[in-house]
């Protein structure tokens, strides 16, 4: 075989790997390595300025288990996650149905519902913090029209959770609706036709055709909401801006775990302990994702 042919063959066989290599190398260095190294750091006494100050085994983990502030942050994270996600998915599903009817000015409505997605989270946090301010916010003014007393949204626990969940839902509901709409449109029309011929009601069609056909997409939407929700950071940080923003309110009433992680790393300068928080959060995300997939899988049996 000529050298030329051999080179050409070598080029053909090696090119694919060269083409995908940049992705894997860069993701490995700046994505996977830091995440993995977090485990190593969490087993050490490691400070922001002093660096590695020695192996401590699982000491950080045992400390975390009895750390009330951590459990408080986990409670807040989960509460906000649930308060935000459940209505968000249901609303997105309903909105997708609405957008799936024959509409005039189709694109206008679609763009209209996802404009919030183009707004930065920082802007969302700042705008909503103003809207939810106790004395002069537009929300309290509005509920005041119905005779409701002003609520100190960023002072009390449940109201702060609700306000933060509102920010999350405002930004993501329309986007999820579009994803679900795409999935709705991929459902073969014939399925509905034959169901209609069999005399199935609209509700029955929704339950027996639409929901099962949407299962993979629902799974995706729920997974993304979970990964994002458990790492929630910016909205609560900017809800009560100022020098102590990272504590999520005077009594940590809305400090999420991601905020606690950052507080430990940069305010407390305890990298080892912060890495422990990160690793536990990672485990939490994995567990919740598994639970999600089990729940969504059950949809298949809805009949």
């Amino acid at each position: 075989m000529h050298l030329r042919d051999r080179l050409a063959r070598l080029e053909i066989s090696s090119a694919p790997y060269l083409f995908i290599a940049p992705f894997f190398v860069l993701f490995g260095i700046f994505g996977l390595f830091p995440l993995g190294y977090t485990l190593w750091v969490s087993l050490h006494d490691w400070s922001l300025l002093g660096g590695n100050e020695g192996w401590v085994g699982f000491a950080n983990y045992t400390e975390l288990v009895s750390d009330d502030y951590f459990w408080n942050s986990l409670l807040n994270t989960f509460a906000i996650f649930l308060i935000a996600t459940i209505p968000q998915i249901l609303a997105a599903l309903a909105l997708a149905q609405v957008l799936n009817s024959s509409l005039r000015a189709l694109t206008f409505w679609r763009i209209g519902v996802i404009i919030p997605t183009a707004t930065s989270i920082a802007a969302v946090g700042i705008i909503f913090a103003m809207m939810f301010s106790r004395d002069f916010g537009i929300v309290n003014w509005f509920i005041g029209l119905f005779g409701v007393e002003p609520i100190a949204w960023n002072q009390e626990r449940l109201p702060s959770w609700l306000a933060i969940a509102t920010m999350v839902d405002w930004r993501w509901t329309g986007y999820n609706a579009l994803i679900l709409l795409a999935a709705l449109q991929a459902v073969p029309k014939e399925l509905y036709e034959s169901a209609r011929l069999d005399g199935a009601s609209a509700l029955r069609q929704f339950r027996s055709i639409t929901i099962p056909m949407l299962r993979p997409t629902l799974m995706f939407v729920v997974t993304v909401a979970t990964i994002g929700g458990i790492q929630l950071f910016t909205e609560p940080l900017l809800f009560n801006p100022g020098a102590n923003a990272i504590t999520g309110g005077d009594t940590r009433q809305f400090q999420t775990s991601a905020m606690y992680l950052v507080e430990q790393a940069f305010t407390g300068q305890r990298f080892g302990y912060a890495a422990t928080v990160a690793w536990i959060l990672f485990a939490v995300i994995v567990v919740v994702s598994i639970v999600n997939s089990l729940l969504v899988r059950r949809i298949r049996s809805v009949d």
Partner: protein
Amino acid sequence: MTTPLIPVATVAQDLDEPEPVRRRRRRVRSRKASPLTYLVLVFVVLASIGPLYYMLVMASRPNSDITSNPPPLTPGDQLGENVTRVFDNPDVVFAQALLNSLMVSAVATLTVVTLSSLAGFAFAKLRFRGKNIFLLAVIGTMMVPVQLGLVPLYMLMGWLGLAGSLWSAVLPFLVTGFGVFFMRQYVSQAIPDELIEAARVDGASTFRIFAQVVFPALRPAVAVLGLLTFMERWNDFMWPYLTLAPENPTVQVALSRLSGGYYTDQALVMAGTLLATVPLVLVFILFGRRIVGGIMEGGLKG
């Protein structure tokens, strides 16, 4: 939050199919839209733009109007003055922050688009051992919460001597699994195999085929991926907030500094928020049809 913008759940089945089969999709027009449907949509769109409108109202009024009761509901005439005050304020160099955001977003967009096209082309059209496993790995990376590695990432930037610099804000975002997957989907159905075979027969190298045959045909996908990537980087908050030096922030970080001041001038903060938001929202509306199409199509063509 870094989020893959397109569903990937359907890809698993797709991997078994040797050729991308364009699935027959007909729009399910089950119901004609009733007036009630439009009413719901009007309400949803109002809720969508309401907070942005409120931002405009507050950004265009004197700061003293913040405390008026009932709250003002129409824009005032001070937008120009408030914007000037944003650029003149001593705490945050706002013009620099805008420029920093532009640079960070542009660099990340360029690399994401280029490297995603390259890898997407390989996954869609080239034959190589382990392809399916590599592709699954790419999809897997979208499910990994890499932000949780922020402590070692911060240390890494220190080791590289980049702590606090703009580079530290860019490097973690040079590639995205979403981008690779998105391009792979597009290449599969936009580029006929015959085109590549023909170029091969002519003796073109794989890279030349990519550069001269494939990449030029990817323009629509490049535009959508570019816009989405730029938007995501421009709006990014958490990592730039942690890594950038306080005197050299991106615009989102600058906003948080403005709003966190001891004495908060809300009109100024709102004008700043407007400056950081409106350009992107306008681009989004301008290219809305394409972006919506990109979000909706990408995930289903598999």
